């Protein structure tokens, strides 16, 4: 039997406001334990929460960017469970009246757009951090109370790769909004996954597993892949799956069953009486919508239109906000009408250099003007593509200009006809057989002769001009 994979993701995102969700503690990472805390986020007896206006605005931005409907009435609820990283032993969250519902975004797995539903985006607060020792657990409440939003997807993802692409796309949108660091390794973005398998064609969902403890997008993908195989194996051998939470062990590359804390039905959600209702009027929402920055999908379409780029090229360029800005500025500097050669360099060699250096293209040590210059050299056939790639790498390493590096490397192609003709004459003289072959109609022979010209010129001959000259010379002879 063939199975369909069904995945839904729950993404928790720390909002990068100046202060915490319900108190005025500055959000400041890397500080000494329990130094970014106050009576309110410590949940000391008698303290009360007041929600951060900026957190609400940021959350609304995110909800709108994911095409969600902002609910007219929303409220906070308490989710009750005991855990030492939770000072009040309840988390302020949202239950039946979340900030927003019914959104969607598009992913491009294998270059085809697919719509992924967003069930809801709601507001909550972060918990503290635990450090486990031999006999004790140590608690640091610095993170406690940082505003979070939870983005819950519909179970519309059908492969670990789609889940990966969803996360990448989601991160890209958030980055454009500039409301969160979105860094899974630092914990500002966290992701839990629900996964189940069902027989192909079935409309009923299978028994699901909740996966936790992944700390990179790749970790999410790997954990899901492991789970697909584990579940399929059980199903194929007619074994019963149990609904459970499993933790991803990245080192061992497997998921392990976790004994549950409190079951979801034991959370005893109820409206938080310490916080008021929020009535969010349409005008306010529209005002925020009006101030939203251009989002990746819009930018992609604009690039396609304005610069006649293919969807594929445009999609790569827009995936990062800063890189897309860098790319667009380069495109504007580049004076040729056809932008494709430059774009090829942006998403080709430049992106490659960036990947090697584990950075974005905008973070590389290269001036936009210089990059455009380099592409100009190539386009004018003044240097070979191969040389240009070397120059690009050197530019990034040294910060020197393209022109200087080309000069230093003596890389300008020989396009001078007199120089080339001298080389050609000597090649013809030395390769009579190939000359005859060409004359007999074997066009491959010309390639060989061009190769010889290149060799003799130490690679600096312009292969196109050399080819033209050769052809003309041999046809005339």
């Amino acid at each position, binding site marked *: 039997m063939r199975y369909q994979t069904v995945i839904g993701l729950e993404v928790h995102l720390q909002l990068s406001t100046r202060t915490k969700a319900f108190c005025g503690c500055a959000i400041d990472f890397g500080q000494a334990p329990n130094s970014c805390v106050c009576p309110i986020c410590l949940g000391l*007896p008698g303290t009360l929460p*007041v929600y951060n206006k900026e957190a609400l605005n940021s959350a609304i931005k995110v909800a709108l960017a994911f095409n969600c409907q902002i609910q007219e009435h929303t409220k906070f609820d308490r989710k009750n469970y005991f855990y030492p990283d939770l000072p009040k*032993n309840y988390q302020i969250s949202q239950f039946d009246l979340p900030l927003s519902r019914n959104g969607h975004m598009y992913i491009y797995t294998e270059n085809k757009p697919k719509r992924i539903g967003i069930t809801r985006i709601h507001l909550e607060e972060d918990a503290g951090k635990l450090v486990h020792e031999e006999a004790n657990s140590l608690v640091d409440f610095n993170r406690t109370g940082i505003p979070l939003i939870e983005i819950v997807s519909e179970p519309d993802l059908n492969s670990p790769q789609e889940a990966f692409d969803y996360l990448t796309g989601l991160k890209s949108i958030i980055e454009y909004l500039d409301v969160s660091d979105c860094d899974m390794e630092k914990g500002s973005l966290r992701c839990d996954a629900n996964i189940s398998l069902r027989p192909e064609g079935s409309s009923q969902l299978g028994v699901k597993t909740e996966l936790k403890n992944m700390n990179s997008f790749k970790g999410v993908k790997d954990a899901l892949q492991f789970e697909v195989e584990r579940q399929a194996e059980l199903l194929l051998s007619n074994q019963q799956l149990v609904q459970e939470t499993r933790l991803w062990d990245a080192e061992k590359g497997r998921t392990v069953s976790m004994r549950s804390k409190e079951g979801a039905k034991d959370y005893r959600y109820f409206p938080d009486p310490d916080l008021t209702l929020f009535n969010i009027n349409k005008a306010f929402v529209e005002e925020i919508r009006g101030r939203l920055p251009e989002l990746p999908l819009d930018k992609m379409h604009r690039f396609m239109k304005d610069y006649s780029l293919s969807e594929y090229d445009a999609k790569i360029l827009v995936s990062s906000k800063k890189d897309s800005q860098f790319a667009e500025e380069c495109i504007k500097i580049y004076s040729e009408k056809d932008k494709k050669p430059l774009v090829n360099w942006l998403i080709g060699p430049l992106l490659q250099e960036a990947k090697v250096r584990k950075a974005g293209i905008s973070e590389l040590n290269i001036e936009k003007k210089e990059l455009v210059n380099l592409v100009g050299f190539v386009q004018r056939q003044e240097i070979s593509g191969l040389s240009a790639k070397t120059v690009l790498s050197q530019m990034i390493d040294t910060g020197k200009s393209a022109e200087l590096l080309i000069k230093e490397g003596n890389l300008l192609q020989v396009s001078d006809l007199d120089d080339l003709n001298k080389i050609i004459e000597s090649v013809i003289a030395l390769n009579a057989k190939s000359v005859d072959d060409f004359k007999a109609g074997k066009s491959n022979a010309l390639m060989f002769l061009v190769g010889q010209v290149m060799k003799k010129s130490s690679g600096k001959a312009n292969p196109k001009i050399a080819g033209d000259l050769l052809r003309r010379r041999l046809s005339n002879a």
Partner: protein
Amino acid sequence: MELNQLTAHQLLDKIKDGSITSQAIFDSLYQRVNKIDDKVNAYVRRGNLERTGKESGSKSELLGLPVTIKDNICTEGLNTECCSKILQGFRPPYDATVINNLKRSGAGIFELKANMDEFAFGSSTENSYFGSTHNPWNLDCVPGGSSGGSAAAVAADEAIWALGSDTGGSIRQPASFCGVVGLKPTYGRVSRFGLIAFASSLDQIGPITKDVEDAAILTRIIAGYDPNDSTSVNQSVPDYTKSLTNDIKGLKIAIPKEYFVEGMDPEVKAVVDEAVNKLKGLGAVIKQVTLAHTEYAVPVYYIIATAEASSNLARFDGVQYGYRAKSDNLIEMYKKTRAEGFGEEAKRRIMLGTFALSHGYYDAYYLRALKVRTLIKQDFDKVFSEFDCIVAPTSPSAAFKIGERTSDPLKMYLSDIYTISVNLAGIPAMSIPCGFTKNKLPVGLQIMAGAFNEETIFKVGHTYEQNTDWHKLKPVIRL
């Protein structure tokens, strides 16, 4: 009269004319506490009493006048334990907003905190980790609760005035039992920031005083918008002393028939009827009305209040402060800490509230209770659309004997039957002394008004007070 026997406004006059200092008032209170509090037990942790100079020399309005604070209101650096073992040793690193307001107004904070039912769970102050408070009018009787320490201290002249908190009657009922004045302000009138929560949607801090004028002064000082409390209302605070006019002619007063029913002590009924007649004699128009959903108030209250409490009290787990039981396993530590740290009533209410919120019962209990709460509020809205205020007894009985109701929680819960609706409706209400039973136990008259209409309450209370002497009588404490 000794200084400790005077009202705050009398003492303020004396400080102003230079005849006394606030230090002298502190001294007279210490003397009184040292003399009688072993009997009354209005204050807790008395061993801590430091007779240090308290002369603040404050030139602000209250001129250094001491205020007694209930043990559930956070005072920076002073133990605040809600009279619970689980909070033992807890010294808040911050002051409640009301304490800030008091200090800003020049008040001196009395270092001893007033006794109370643990976490304000109770109507008798018998549920205190530090032992029961005794009613100054009869030491064998309870002072009411949960602000029994505050009320007894004021009644026994161990305090000039005091702050209590009222979730279901915890200011008014002890005020009634101790023969003093106690006001529960409108929900949102006084900041709850720094009040250790029992039931967040019902709790309010309020004054317990020797007369209505003091209540009017203290209310104005503690009331007002607080940006630290989302449920505090941004509405200006009137000078309530302007309402003390001694004139209620033509005022329309409603008498809810559901508050004069069987189960009520006939002596209390007689005293309250007499008080109502007095108001009529002073020119008020009296008419009977109905508050149809009164019978549901106690059940609704015990669902909502305990549900909120079960969540509010979850933080007492031995992690950050207070008592921690020894264990090398976290969950066991939690369970033992809470089993050993909470008293019986606290455990009962946490259990009831947890149950009311739990899966499968939420709709039948909590959600339904919230709906009935709406009906109860609507009853009041309707009455206040036609009347200026409602007058009723504060409690169906006068103070009962210590130990008399401890074995029957339900019976204890029913002692709040006349005070609870007010909290559910969020409206203000005040209890003032209106007479005594044959056994010389005080009876309280409750005056309720619409939201943010404390002024009418003060007007009626003050007028009644000006024409009676009940508030001037003082208990004699047998030593």
